[in-house]
Every structure is written in C-alpha cells, then in structure tokens.
C-alpha cells in the first residue's frame, strides 16, 4: 500500500501510463522530425496513426496477413501515401507562412477520417494480439500482459533508433544540415526536395507503426487519431520541438503523469496533460527542452 492505494492498482495504472506514453513518444517524435525539416505542423499525424492501425486490420481481414508482416508493411503503405501527398500538394506550401501547412494537413485529416468513418462506421473494431504475445507474466509485484510489455519495449527501441539515425549517422547529419540551411546543402549537390519527401514519409511511417502497435491495445476506430493528436500537440508544446530526445522523454513522462493521475484523482485524468502544459508555459515558455520561443 502506498498512500492508501494497493500496489497492484498503482502498478497497473503506471503501466497503462507507460503504454500511453509510448504512443505519445512515437507520435511527438514523428511530429518533431517533420517540423524540424519541413516547418510544417502535421495535423494529419493522428489520421496517419489511424491509417496504420486500419491498414493492419484490413491486411488481416482480407489477406490473412499477420501482425508481424503488417508491422513492416503498414508503415510502408502509409509512408508511400504520405510521400505522394507531400510531392503533389504539401510541397507547394513551403514558401508560405507555416500556418498554411497546418491548415492543409487539418483538411487532409478531416478527409481521411471522414472517409473511413463513412465506410467503416464510428465504432471500434478489435484486432487480436499475435499468438506469441498473448498471455501474462507474473512479476511478483504485478501481473504484466505480455503484449503491453512488448509495446513499451518496441516503442523504446524504435524511438532510440530514430534518435540514433538522426543524431549519429551521416544521413542524419545531412538532414540536420538541411534543417539549418537548405540552400547551402542543395549547393553541395544533395537533393533537398527528395530529402523533404523522405522525411515526411518517415514521420508518417512512425505514426503508422504507432497505429499498428496500438491496434491490439485500443480498438481500431476512425476516431482514434483525433483523440490522441490534440494531446500530442500539448506534449510537443511541453517538450519543445527543438530536440528529438526532448520529444521522446516528454512523451513518456506525460504518459506516466496521466497514469498516476488516474490513480489519485481520476476526474482530472483527461485534462492533466493540458494542465501541465499550462504550468510549463507559465514557468518556462520555451518548453522543457526547447531553445526557440
């Protein structure tokens, strides 16, 4: 017992918070990567997360394609669609005010979600966890469903890989250079427009991976994207988009904070992240890891 709360319940909510945090981290990471290079706030990020989950569901239903294959295939599909959208439409907006990118992707999100809602209804559909990851393990202080443990581990590995890709590789160095000075990088013979397309596809693909991971935890529904994207915006404001690691860490931290609030003051659990955002803005307007205001 801690503060009159049974340790089992506390651990259970902490785990739930960590799961939510995993999705916040993956999504805010994708947002930060896209914003870093394209200077676009990708409002369609939630819709792309939903698309990832739906792709996995449809692959399973129509072709019997397994979870593991979907985990690779679904981000690829969403990434290609995103690349097409970037090339044909989004790319025309870079020279304008950043707000137009936000408004365009907002419209895109409405179209995607409206379409899926029209064809599949608003209700959620279950997606079974793969056989290898069903069941629970007893850790002594708590019972851990294996799939949930997998989500936390998988998202950590993906987040750290993307961080390493951007901070530690040559490709990442080029990316960061293009963020600082696209004209100069272009002069070095690097195809910056292609880099922009790939970055947008990478960000959308990350959202899709999060969607596939989320499919067995939550239900697959056309509305799953907007519910989470507004919270992720708050996460991004708290973390500041200047740092990749900042986005990841803030995602996990706020997920855990949300989980803990569910234990101690459940009524506030769906607003706690917004409250934290407001407090951070008052105390440290640039965000926890941010450099620019």
């Amino acid at each position: 017992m801690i503060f009159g709360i049974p340790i089992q319940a506390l651990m259970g909510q902490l785990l739930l918070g960590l799961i939510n945090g995993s999705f916040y981290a993956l999504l805010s990471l994708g947002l930060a990567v896209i914003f870093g290079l394209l200077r676009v706030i990708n409002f369609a990020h939630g819709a792309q997360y939903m698309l990832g989950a739906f792709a996995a569901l449809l692959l399973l239903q129509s072709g019997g394609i397994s979870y593991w294959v979907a985990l690779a295939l679904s981000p690829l599909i969403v990434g290609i669609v995103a690349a097409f959208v970037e090339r044909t439409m989004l790319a025309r907006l870079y020279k304008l005010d950043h707000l137009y990118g936000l408004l365009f992707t907002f419209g895109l999100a409405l179209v995607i979600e409206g379409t899926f809602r029209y064809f599949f209804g608003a209700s959620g559909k279950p997606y079974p966890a793969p056989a290898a990851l069903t069941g629970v393990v007893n850790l002594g202080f708590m019972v851990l469903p294996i799939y949930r443990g997998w989500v936390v581990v998988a998202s950590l590995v993906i987040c750290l890989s993307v961080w390493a890709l951007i901070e530690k590789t040559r490709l990442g160095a080029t990316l960061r250079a293009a963020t600082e000075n696209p004209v100069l990088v272009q002069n070095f013979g690097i195809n910056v427009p292609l880099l922009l397309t790939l970055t947008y596809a990478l960000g959308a693909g990350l959202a899709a991976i999060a969607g596939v991971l989320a499919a067995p935890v939550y239900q697959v529904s056309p509305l799953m994207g907007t519910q989470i994207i507004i919270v992720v915006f708050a996460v991004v404001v708290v973390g500041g988009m200047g740092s990749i690691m900042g986005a990841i860490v803030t995602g996990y931290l706020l997920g855990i904070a949300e989980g803990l609030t569910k234990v101690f003051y459940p009524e506030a659990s769906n607003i706690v992240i917004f409250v934290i955002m407001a407090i951070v803005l008052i105390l440290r307007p640039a965000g926890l890891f941010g450099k620019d205001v």
Partner: protein
Amino acid sequence: MAHGAAHSAGAEEGTVQLHPKAPTIRLVIVGLMILGLIFAPWFAYPIFVMKLMCFALFASAFNLLLGYTGLLSFGHAAFFGGAAYFTAHAAKVWGFTPELALLIGMTGAALIGLVIGLIALRRTGIYFTMITLALSQMFFFFCLQSPFTHGEDGIQSVPRGHLFGVIDLGPTMNMYYFVFAVVMLGLLVIWRFVNSPFGMILKSIRENENRAISLGYSVVSYKLGAFVMSAALAGLAGGLKSLVFQSATLTDVSWQMSGEVVLMTLLGGIATLTGPFFGAGIVVTLQNYLATSSFPVTILTGLVFMVCVLIFRRGLIGEFYASKLGQKLGYRTET
C-alpha cells in the same frame, strides 16, 4: 498570414483606374446587403438566416484575430460554446432576460479568453495555435464533466424570454430582428475597432512585430486585448445561437467548431470585413444541404480546406477585391 496573399494582390494595383464614384458604389453595395438581410425572412427560412448571421458574427470575431492581428487561434469553440452554455444557463436556470443572459455569456467568454490568451501568448506562431487548441480541448472536457452543462444532453429548451422584459422573442420574426440588430451591432463594433488607432497598431504588429516592439508598443498587451475582444464577440455569437436554437450542446465547444470558423474565414477572405459573412453563408448552406444527403460533411469540409489552402488563399471576397472590378471600385485587401 494575410501577408503573402496581400502582396500578390498589390502587384495589380495602379494598372486599374479608380471609378470616380467608387466610394458611393461601395456604400450602395453595403446598403443593399443590409436591405437583403432585412427582407431575407420573406424569401428564406428565418431560422436558417439567423443561424447564418450568428456564424457570420462568429467568423468576423475570429477574423479580428487572424486577419487583423495575424494570430491563428484553433480554440475559438471554447468562447463560442462556453458563452452558449452561460447564456443558456442564465436564461433558463436564473430566469434572466435575453439581453442580460447574452451579457453573461459575453463576459464569461471574455474571461475564458483572458485566461487562455494569457497562457497561449507566452508563445508565438505555430505554438500559439497548438496551445489554443489544447486549452480549448481542456475546456471541452470541463464541459463534458461539469454538472451545469448536463454532459451529452446539453442544456435544452432554453427560453428566449422577453427583451428588456417587454418584447416577447418567442415569435420567429421578433427573434429574427433581435438577432439582426445584435449581429449588426457586433459587426459595427468590429469595423470601428479595426479602423481605430488600436486596430492600426494591431496591423503594424501583424506586419512587423519587432518594429512595433522597437517603437515602444507593449505588443503582448495589444495582442491580449485583441484576443479578449475576439473572444467576447465570439461569445456574443454563441450566446445568440443558443437563444435561437434554444439549446447549448457539446458540439458548440468541440474542436470541429474551431475548425469550422477557420474555414469560414479562409473561404470568405482573411482580413476582409465582409468575407467571413460570405464564408459563413457558404459553409452553413452546404451543411444544411448535406444534412439531408448521406454524404458526410466532414469530407467536404476537409476538401474545401485543402483546395482553399492550395489555390484559393485570398478567399471569395479577397479574390473580388484583387480583381479588376474590385480594384476599380477601390477595394483593397487590408495590408
């Protein structure tokens, strides 16, 4: 945001001769529009025109911020819907007369605007937009859980009451001209505000914030003033709508509502005084039309958004202002 569109419009200036009676013609156009609204209930369904006018006021209040201050708020549903709840509550539970209930709604919206504005204005640009969205979503959850809003049911059968305790607003025509008068008053306030010294300073902040700071203006206070003003007027529109439809629901505070008002303004023409009116008209008409068909409104809204941003950034009235005829009549996109 209006900056880019306005610049390309400027390229055509000077090539067109101004019509000698341009100011008179402009005045006549405004007069015709007002006359049209006065006689509209004889040609159109009055409730529909009232809805249109409420949203036109809402979009105009929003444009005050986006068009004339350059701040994109994605949280205006909090003011619109919040005021709808306050007005409905004051009229129904406290038994206030409609003008007092509206005043309560407006004050409430202004207070929410003050709090959200104080927090959101800690950041600029794209962050400001995300913060307003997040805070209005927080207010949505507050409305969802707070007992006085009756959650999913909303506040229903709100009495329209007697204006000043005398004129019964129950009959549709009485309500219509009350709405007409309030909306016109609201638009007049916005027009006066935009053309006041305060409005000029806002425009200078929109054009070059750093220069405004170096000239000694307390930029954040001016922005906050505009934000609260916009929130209060959006609240007036929301309160009015709750009296027209005699209900206040969660739809009014949802993020979709915040998106709709952005669309109305964008479609009609950012930083034009009449643009939001036309934008609201188109959006409300489309919604009414699609309500009877099976085609989802969301998809069309999204498509219109994408098209507007890609190829129609000046909006309807903005395009007219930039056209040869508009130039001839001496219309200028606000720069």
